[in-house]
């Protein structure tokens, strides 16, 4: 069943076998969605919670998804929104200023038992965490997910021109940070 494309999965979901179709959709996209969320939240447990919520929302709303957009851009959009609202909730709950959220995410990198990267990778991740929220998302989608600008535009609701400019700025900032020692 791995060969089924998104339209076929959606048809299966709507025409009588929703549980099975949903299971296939999860298996097809869980890793993309998880890693996207994980790069934003760093912590595995937080990412796990958010990914579960993402797919529960997908289950609740898949019936209304009409297939005008690509399914994976729709999934990424839900995941991005869920991850960002998770960060905002955390910030509000603990009265943490935005700068400190980034600081605490960077600290998590140090203590995360599921981070296996070397020093250069750790430095790259810390550099990415210093970026403003939206630039960070754009950089991750382009650099790690190797996503096309058109798809990023569907996810973030930003023009491809603005996305290219943001990626350029983000890459320059990270380059500077890596050079700085």
């Amino acid at each position: 069943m791995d060969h089924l494309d998104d339209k076929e999965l959606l048809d299966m979901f709507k025409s009588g076998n929703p549980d099975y179709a949903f299971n296939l959709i999860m298996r097809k996209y869980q890793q993309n969605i998880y890693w996207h969320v994980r790069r934003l939240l760093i912590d595995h447990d937080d990412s796990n919670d958010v990914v579960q919520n993402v797919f529960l929302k997908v289950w609740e709303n898949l019936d209304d998804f009409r297939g005008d957009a690509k399914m994976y851009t729709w999934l990424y959009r839900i995941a991005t929104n869920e991850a960002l609202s998770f960060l905002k909730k955390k910030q509000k709950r603990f009265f943490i200023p935005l700068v400190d959220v980034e600081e605490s995410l960077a600290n998590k990198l140090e203590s995360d038992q599921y981070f296996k990267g070397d020093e250069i990778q750790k430095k790259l991740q810390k550099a990415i965490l210093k970026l403003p929220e939206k630039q960070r998302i754009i950089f991750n989608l382009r650099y790690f997910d190797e996503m096309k600008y058109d798809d990023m535009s569907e996810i973030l609701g930003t023009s491809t021109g603005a996305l290219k400019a943001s990626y350029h700025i983000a890459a320059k900032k990270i380059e500077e940070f890596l050079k700085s020692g």
Partner: protein
Amino acid sequence: MEKEKPDILKKELLDQAPGMSNAPKDNPFEVPKDYFENLPVRIQQLKNSRTQRSHRTIWGYSQQKVLAYAAALAVLVSFGLSVFFLTHDDDINDLAGIEDDYYESYFSYIADYDEAHYYDVVLNEENDILDSEDIFFGVMWEEDMEEDEYFEYLLDNMDIYPYLLEEIADNN
């Protein structure tokens, strides 16, 4: 998910941030063992437990809703009645006056009611109807009835109350 061509990505990075061209791209994060094997199962379980919970709470939820609506309705009705009585005070009193007068007359007639008066009406004033087939006090006179028989019949069957009420209305 269709990825960007590697050569486009490489050229873009070389043009914009050449120092990044040798930066690592490998995923430095890990997940617990069998995480992705078990994740769909856990999500299915969560989904099912949520569905069950929502089914279980339907009655409780409805009950709460019904109580809430009932309470809101009671408040609204009380408020509406208060406003009505406050703004229609005079009308109510007028109505009450009419009602009181009417019932006062009615009970007064009932109290003074003398059956004989109505028999007299039948005997003295409406004698001619005894010869007719008209209806008197709701009782039809039949030609072959004797007078005494008719009065006996009237006592048992006639309903004077509509006529009493008519008389009260005329007097008012």
